[in-house]
Each structure stands twice: as C-alpha cells, then as structure tokens.
C-alpha cells in the first residue's frame, strides 16, 4: 500500500500533530481493561455448554441458555458485529458516512449462494471467488464514489446499493431468486456446518469470525494507516499539508470496510441458509448497522460490537415478547408501540443521539472515569 498512500514511514511526532491528540490508548492498559474482553469472550465461547434454564431474558422460544434459539440469535449478532466493525472503520475512524455498505454484504451472501447453489462449487473455491468479487466491486465502486465528498458521497453510495437491490429483485437469468431469495444448497458443505448438530458449530464459526475481524480491525486502526484515517476524519487539509495523499487512505478504508461486509455476508449465508433481498440488500440493513454503531459508540471498536449484539438481541427478544399470550391483554396504547421492535429501537436511537452521543462505550468510559475518581 505504500505507493498508494504516499509513504508509510511517518515519524511519531508528525502523527501526533496530525491527529491533535492521541486518540487511542497506548502504553500498558490496566489489567481490568485486558481481562474484561477476555472474560466476555470466554463466556461466549463456553455458552453452548450451558444447559441450564434462565427465565424471561433469553431471546429464543426455549428458556435454556444453550438452546438453538439463543445460539442462532447470538450468532447473528456476531455476524452483524463484524459488519458494524467494518462500518465503524469507515464512518467512525475515517469520517466517511456511506449509505451503501449493504451492497458488499449482499454481494458476499449472494455470490457465495450462487456459487454453491447454482454452480455447485465446493466451499473453498466458492469463498475465494466471493472474496475476489467483493474486492473487485469495492475497488471499482470505491474509486468512483470517493471522487465526491460529504452528502454527495453518502447519496452516491446509497444509489449504488439501491441499484444492487433492484438488480437482485429482478432475478436476472434466474440467478438470485428474486423477492423470495435463494436458498443455499448444502450439498457440498462440510457436514459440521449442516444438519441438526450444526447450530453449535455455526455459532462458534461466527464467534471465531468476529474475533478475527476484531483483531484485524484493531491492527488496522492502531497502525500508521489508522492514525492517518483519524487525521482525515478531523481535517483533510492537515493531512495534505503533511505530504500525504488522502485519496489512497480513504480508498483503503472503504475497501477494508467493504471486505469485512462481504465476509460478513458469507458467514451470514452459512448461518441463515438463505439470501433474500429484504434481509440482505435493503436500506433496512443499512439503517440497522448505522444504529448499531451509534448505539455502541462511534469510533470505539468494541462499541460497534456491543451495539450490534444488543441490537440483534433486542430485536429478537422484543418479537418474542410480543408473541406472548399475556402480551395481547395489554391495553392498546401500550401494546401497539411495544409490539414493534422498530419503534422501540428507533426511540432508543433518538434518545441516544440526543442525550448519549458517545453510545454504550461512552457511558462505560464515564463510569470508569468516575470510579477512578476523576
């Protein structure tokens, strides 16, 4: 990437000037900060072994911790957490508001689906061709869309995502299955990923995927490139004055984010088994990912993960509650709004934007500061 980004050997002093303040925590963090995520990871990893019942709080139909319902919801949460991480790099770290990342998510799901179900390829070649397709798409469209900035950039990314949605709906050559979607043919998949016992394996696959995505994102944002992204977010002029070519960095951020979305689309397909335009290619997904990142805390990495898991969990949980028989006996003014997860999530989102702009991560940061006595 050196040629594209005009040089990667920047002295530390220059980098600090670029970003004003050091945005990321360096040095040796306290043991609490390293231990906490590891504990959470351990809990998630061991979850499929937790065979006990917990009343009320679980999102699936069965109130047992390691039931298929719980694992599926959490797995979905992990997939979207990865997509949200990618979006956070683009929006939170580089300051580019794109309304079109869902296109790459859809590409990941649909190309893999087509390769497996229409062309009947084996899993590995199918994954490879999907990744290549996602990369090519991101490079071409990224180079195109990044020619404009700000609102124009947001709109042109939205435009391409919508074009993708319409193309999928039109079911050209019968490839995409149109409105009803394309069901994934499981014929050539490894047996661990299909069939009844697969829920656990798919859950772990999603978890491992999330960990990998988080690691890669952490490396990217802590690197020199990541600091330049932060600088670009603050002021492009500053970056230019220091001899950098922002375009290359912006493109790198865009491609990085899009590749993560594509990968997320692939894992999504494996988890859910169908690719349908409404759930994979519509603006609803775009909005959802945006809400996840803002709820979790823009530009904080773990915020995006927390936001995504909370969002997916809440959505399923609220649907479950609304289907309860006792729910139907609530008076209409309560029952109507509560029956729609979108309403509650929208209200929570508005409240967060107004009063908690730092998101969940911001709240956690404030709690930590207070505990440290500052």
């Amino acid at each position: 990437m050196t040629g594209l980004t005009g040089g990667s050997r920047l002295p530390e002093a220059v980098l600090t000037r670029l970003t004003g303040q050091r945005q990321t925590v360096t040095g040796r963090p306290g043991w609490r900060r390293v231990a906490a995520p590891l504990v959470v990871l351990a809990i998630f990893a061991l979850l499929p072994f937790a065979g006990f019942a917990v009343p009320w709080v679980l999102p699936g139909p069965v109130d047992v911790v390691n039931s298929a319902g719980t694992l599926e919801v959490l797995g979905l949460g992990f997939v979207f957490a990865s997509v949200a991480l990618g979006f956070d790099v683009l929006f939170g770290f580089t300051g580019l508001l794109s309304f079109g990342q869902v296109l790459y998510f859809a590409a990941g799901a649909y190309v893999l689906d087509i390769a497996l179900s229409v062309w009947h390829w084996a899993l590995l070649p199918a994954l490879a061709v999907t990744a290549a397709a996602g990369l090519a798409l991101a490079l071409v469209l990224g180079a195109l869309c990044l020619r404009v900035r700000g609102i124009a950039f947001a709109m042109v990314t939205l435009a391409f995502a919508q074009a993708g949605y319409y193309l999928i709906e039109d079911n050209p050559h019968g490839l995409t299955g149109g409105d009803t979607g394309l069901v994934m043919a499981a014929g050539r998949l490894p047996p661990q990923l299909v069939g009844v016992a697969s829920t656990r394996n798919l859950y772990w696959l999603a978890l491992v995927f999330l960990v990998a995505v988080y690691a890669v994102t952490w490396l990217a944002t802590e690197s020199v490139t990541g600091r330049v992204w932060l600088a670009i977010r603050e002021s492009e002029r500053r970056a230019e004055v220091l001899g950098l070519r922002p375009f290359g960095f912006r493109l790198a951020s865009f491609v990085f984010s899009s590749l993560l979305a594509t990968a997320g689309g692939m894992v999504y397909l494996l988890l859910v088994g169908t690719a349908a335009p409404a759930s994979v290619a519509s603006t609803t997904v775009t909005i959802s990912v945006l809400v996840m990142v803002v709820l979790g805390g823009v530009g904080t990495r773990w915020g995006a993960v927390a936001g995504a898991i909370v969002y997916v969990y809440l959505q399923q949980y609220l649907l479950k509650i609304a289907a309860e028989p006792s729910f139907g006996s609530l008076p209409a003014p309560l029952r109507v709004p509560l029956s729609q997860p979108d309403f509650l999530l929208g209200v929570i989102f508005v409240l967060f934007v107004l009063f908690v702009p730092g998101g969940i991560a911001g709240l956690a940061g404030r709690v930590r500061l207070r505990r440290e006595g500052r």
Partner: protein
Amino acid sequence: MTTFVAITVSGLALGAVYFLIAAGLSLIYGLMGVLNFAHGAFLTLGGYAGWAVAQQLTAARGGAGFLLTAGAAALAGAAVAAATELLLIRPLYGRQIAQILVTIGLDLALVGLLLGAFGSNSRAIGVPAWVTGVTAIGGVRIPDGDFVAFGAGLAVLGALTWFLRRTRYGIIIRAGAENRDMVRALGVDVGRAFTLVFTVGGAAAGLAGLLNSVVFSGALVDPTQGDQLLIFAFIVVVIGGLGSIAGSALAAVVVGLVQVYVGFYAGGGAGLAQLGNVSVVLVLAVVLLVRPRGLLGGST
C-alpha cells in the same frame, strides 16, 4: 403513439409527486444542512391522515370532501414536521451528522408505530370517483389522477416560487441557504425560518403521500410507502441540486420520465420490472460523478 402520450403523462404525474417531496427536502437541506430522513414518515402520515378523514366524511366522494382530505394530509405532515424541528433538530444545532441520525431514528420509530397500529396491509381511502376515473383526450385514455397530481405539483411550485421571491421569509430562506451566519449577523432569528421550512416541507410531503396513495397505489395506504418514495425524492433533490427549487422541479420531471420510459419500453420487454428504477439510480450516480452539485445547484 397514444401509449407514448399516456406514459409521458404518467411520468409527469409521478414527477409531480417527487417534486412535492423533493421541494421540502431541498429547502430543508439548503437552509439547514439537514438531510431529513423523517420525510418518509411525514409522507406516510399524510396518507393515513387523509385516510382517517376520508373515513369520517361521507361527502368524501365529492370534490369538497377531497379537498378536506388533502388538507388533512398536508396539515398532518406540517404538524409532525414542526414538532420534529422544535423537539429533535433544534437541540442538535451545529451537529449536522447528529441531526441526520436523529431523523433516521424518527423515521424508524414512526414507521414502526404505524406498522403496529395498522399492520402491513393497505387501507383504502375514500375518494371521489372523478379522481380515479379516466378521461379520453384525442383518443388517449389518461387517468384523471394524473391531472390531479400534476396540477398539485404545478400549484405548489407556483406557490413556493412566489413565497421565496416575494415574502420576507422567502428572502431569509434564500439568503440563509447561501450564508446562514451572515443572516444571523444581520439580526435575523434563523430559528424561526428553520421551523417554517420544516413545516412547509412537511405539508408538501403529507400532500404527496396522499396523492401517491390515490394516484399510484389505487387509493391504498400502507406504512412502508413513504420510505420507498423517499429514496427517489432524495435522488431528485441531489440531481437537481441541493437547495434549488427549480432544480428539484427539473430533476423531478427527468426522473419521472426516465423511470416510466425505461420501465415500460426496456424493462417490460426484458421482464426486468425494476429496470426503470435501476436506470434512475444510475442517472444519479452519473450526475454526481460528473457534476457533484447537481444540475442547478449552487456551490455546496
């Protein structure tokens, strides 16, 4: 040939509906820098308000009843828009991204509420027979609704143009779109202009929602129609140039026509129903990449 005329008229009517939505969006963005995603909800609410009023009026079958229905739609849109500006947008003054985000959240919540209240099935609006009828002109059968929509679009265009050119608030809005700080530095309370612009935009959106239901959806309202239209309205606004009413009008006509022509002539044949939509989206992409400020937009 007759088909061509009929299609052209329907394209113009569609363009008129887009213009009604785009005009508000354009004004709001031009003056305030806010990309109002909640406009879709204003649209849908307008449609439902019209439906609710039409339900109560047995005289909805007559011309006066229809005016009341339309008025109710516009009023509902205006009221919700004003509330949105005062309660959600004002507290976030100076934070453009946050303002955009809050409108996204509002749209999500409002559509969710409507889905909960009315379900995803459509409801029928009572309208006069002449609105859903067809008139034959020189051998071409044109739905009367097309005339209504186009007429409404023209009327609003005229009213807006008059408002912007002739009234003090019109001057404030035009100046504010150029340089908001300087307007304040001349002693003008732009906050009032913000609320006004939102309200006017909301009224036009409400009306558009009703017209869309009546003319293009067979007099049916459903909770998701607003968001589908909104994307096209955004496209119109950006193609025409953010902040330019004339640009929105021009772009609305272009988009409406492209959509119906491509949809009918190209898409119909190849079985690609959405080709019209795809082509509109691609026009947007082309315009943005060649001329980012739109056809008639000023400097961004």
